[in-house]
């Protein structure tokens, strides 16, 4: 019913602000407590009043509930950040980055995997230590072995020489018998040994008969121990010196001994310092081919010069020792070196594989943690969204009903205000649906897909917007791009999301821009690159852009879920998504998808 309207008060103007904070303000302006006062003399139809009161109550309920939820959500997010980072939540809250310019709490959950840079593997000092020690040990051991070798060889050669001398002495005695003894005794059979060794004959004997045997001196001893003859006229001792007497005379065995550095007056009369082998040979009066049969009548002391022979032998031995020890040492050292090298290499390899395993484990754990966090947040968001859904349905439904009413029933201002409510309700519904799609645990429906087709589908959806907003689109899709197993709808969503983000970034900065969309096959993967020439991503945000609820826009323009949905989708497909700064300006997003056969 209509009456002529008296001068009426204009209801307050509503300035539209984000729903949560000011829904109560909206409710307050729809003042139905005194209907006549508010609407002038218009009579309000009773069901409209009922409607409006229902509307007011719904809005108030939603507003208080959603404010509570917002605080609850922010608090939970902050304490989970604190748990992840080990930070003091209070300290984080004091951080100026924690609120947007309007003072709304910014919920940022940092889930980027933190990875330690693996320490570069240095050459193990233990390796060098082992090599050095081995070298020293090998040197010491081979030197000692060489020394022992030389000693032993020398001793052997001494014995050899002595034996040889004994044999040579027998030969000399043999010569003596036939050239000195026999001729004399055939004529004078009763001559004693001492009398037989006539100086002249002995001199001749000594010089001629012993040629080649290096005889330096010759002594002939009587059995009573007196010296019968000596090639050295200055021989001082005329009595037996030394304890050779008993074994030689009583046992009848010759005795040879090597003595070094003896002062000898040799057969030529020269005084020399020699190494000699002195042999004491029991001379028997018998044919030398049957020596055991004869009686010992005297002792021949034969001194042979072995200096040079010994020196030669020794130098020979030393050379052999040196080369032998160097050779053996080198071989042993080389062997040990390779063993150490192998052990070291294998331990390095084991270390590397362990640290690689650790890095892989860390990475997969980080991803698991991230997925779990995303899932947890997803559940939280799903809960929130579902709770919100019902009241929103009421608001939206009521707003629709009001909208559909006959226009004549309503004051035009009221109708305008109600239509704004309807708009905001629609917007809220959109946000809730976005949240729900984020939270939905629908698996990817994989099919053998053409990625280019998905990209083109996304471009088609956005082509008009791009044109209208003066954005130059450069599209270069590799024509023979192979197909792969993927969910085409989800890939399309990812590409669409990235295009919309690029669009928004470019339009914020200026009134035009250039968008490059590229697809190519790189190795075993398909790369999709979406790059713009907008303001780019600030350095401090690069780590966080894929985190849920992270947005660099103010509260109310976007939930900050787009890129984190892209990240989840790519993970589901076994691929990756990353952001880079362009060289000149702007940002580029690179999506990598593995090429999987159907």
């Amino acid at each position, binding site marked *: 019913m209509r009456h002529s309207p008296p001068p009426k008060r204009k209801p307050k103007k509503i300035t539209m602000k984000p729903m949560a904070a000011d829904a109560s303000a909206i409710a307050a302006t729809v003042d139905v407590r005194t209907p006549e006062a508010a609407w002038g003399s218009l009579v309000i139809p009773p069901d409209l009043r009922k409607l409006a009161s229902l509307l007011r109550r719904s809005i108030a309920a939603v507003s208080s509930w959603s404010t509570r939820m917002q605080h609850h959500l922010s608090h939970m997010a902050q304490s989970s950040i604190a748990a992840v980072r080990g930070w003091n939540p209070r300290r984080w809250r004091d951080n100026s980055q924690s609120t947007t310019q309007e003072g709304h709490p910014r919920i940022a959950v940092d889930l980027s995997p933190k990875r330690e840079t693996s320490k570069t593997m240095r050459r193990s000092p233990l390796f060098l230590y082992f090599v050095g020690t081995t070298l020293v040990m090998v040197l010491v051991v081979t030197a000692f072995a060489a020394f022992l070798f030389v000693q032993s060889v020398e001793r052997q050669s001494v014995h050899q020489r002595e034996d040889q001398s004994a044999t040579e002495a027998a030969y000399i005695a043999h010569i003596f018998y036939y050239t000195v003894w026999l001729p004399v005794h055939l004529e004078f059979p009763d001559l004693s040994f001492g009398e037989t060794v006539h100086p002249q004959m002995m001199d001749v004997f000594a010089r001629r008969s012993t040629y080649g045997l290096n005889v330096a001196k010759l002594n002939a001893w009587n059995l009573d121990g007196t010296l019968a003859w000596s090639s050295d006229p200055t021989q001082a001792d005329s009595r037996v010196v030394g304890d050779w007497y008993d074994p030689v005379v009583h046992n009848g065995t010759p005795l040879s001994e090597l003595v070094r550095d003896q002062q000898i007056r040799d057969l030529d009369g020269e005084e020399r310092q020699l190494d000699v082998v002195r042999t004491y040979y029991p001379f028997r009066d018998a044919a030398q081919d049957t020596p055991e049969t004869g009686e010992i009548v005297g002792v021949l002391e034969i001194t042979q010069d072995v200096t040079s022979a010994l020196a030669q032998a020794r130098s020979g031995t030393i050379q052999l020792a040196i080369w032998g020890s160097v050779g053996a040492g080198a071989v042993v050292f080389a062997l040990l070196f390779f063993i150490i090298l192998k052990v070291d290499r294998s331990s390095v390899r084991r270390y590397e594989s362990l640290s690689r395993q650790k890095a892989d484990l860390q990475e997969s754990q980080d991803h698991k943690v991230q997925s779990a966090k995303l899932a947890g947040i997803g559940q939280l968001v799903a809960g929130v969204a*579902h709770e919100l859904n*019902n009241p929103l*349905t*009421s608001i*939206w439904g*009521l707003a629709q009903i009001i909208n559909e009413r006959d226009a004549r029933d309503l004051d035009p201002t009221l109708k305008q205000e109600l239509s704004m409510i309807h708009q905001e309700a629609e917007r809220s*519904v959109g946000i809730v649906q976005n949240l729900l799609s984020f939270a*939905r645990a*629908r698996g990817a429906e994989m099919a053998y897909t053409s990625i280019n087709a998905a990209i083109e589908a996304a471009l088609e959806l956005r082509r008009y917007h791009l044109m209208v907003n003066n954005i130059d689109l450069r599209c270069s899709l590799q024509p023979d791009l192979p197909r792969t197993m993927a969910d085409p709808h989800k890939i399309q969503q990812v590409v669409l999301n990235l295009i919309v983000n690029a669009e928004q970034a470019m339009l914020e900065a200026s009134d035009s821009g250039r968008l490059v969309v590229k697809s190519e096959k790189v190795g075993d993967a398909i790369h999709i690159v979406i790059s713009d020439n907008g303001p780019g991503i600030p350095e401090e945000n690069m780590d966080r852009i894929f985190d849920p609820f992270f947005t660099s826009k103010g509260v109310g323009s976007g939930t900050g879920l787009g890129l984190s949905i892209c990240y989840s989708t790519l993970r589901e497909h076994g691929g990756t998504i990353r952001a880079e700064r362009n060289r000149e300006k702007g940002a580029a997003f690179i999506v990598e998808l593995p090429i999987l056969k159907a």
Partner: protein
Amino acid sequence: MDSPQTALIVDDEKPIRYILTQCVKKMGYGCVEAGSGQAALEQLARQKFQLVLLDVKMPGITGFDVMKRIRASYPDTCVVMLSALSNPDVAGRAITSLGADAFISKPLRLDELRTTIRRAVHQRTTARPHC
């Protein structure tokens, strides 16, 4: 049909019942509201309904249980299920296993609701009873 069309509106929230009632009334049905599964069954026992708008998530006897009983006892009734759970599995389950005629998810668009109701009623009245 000449006989009066009545619809049963089942939802545990008053504002939603109000909206549905307004909408369905405009389509020419007389409306009866029920605030729970139990109340719905009581109403169903009292009179015959051509249309039932049934919310899935309700405390006590859920929408699915009511659905089962409707199908068991009142095979001619057209049932449209509503739910805030927009999980497509739930929709599929409702429609195929229990014999609901249509499914619409909250938040509702009124025009969508009207179209769905009309289509569902048409299907039920023209189609043969479905085993």
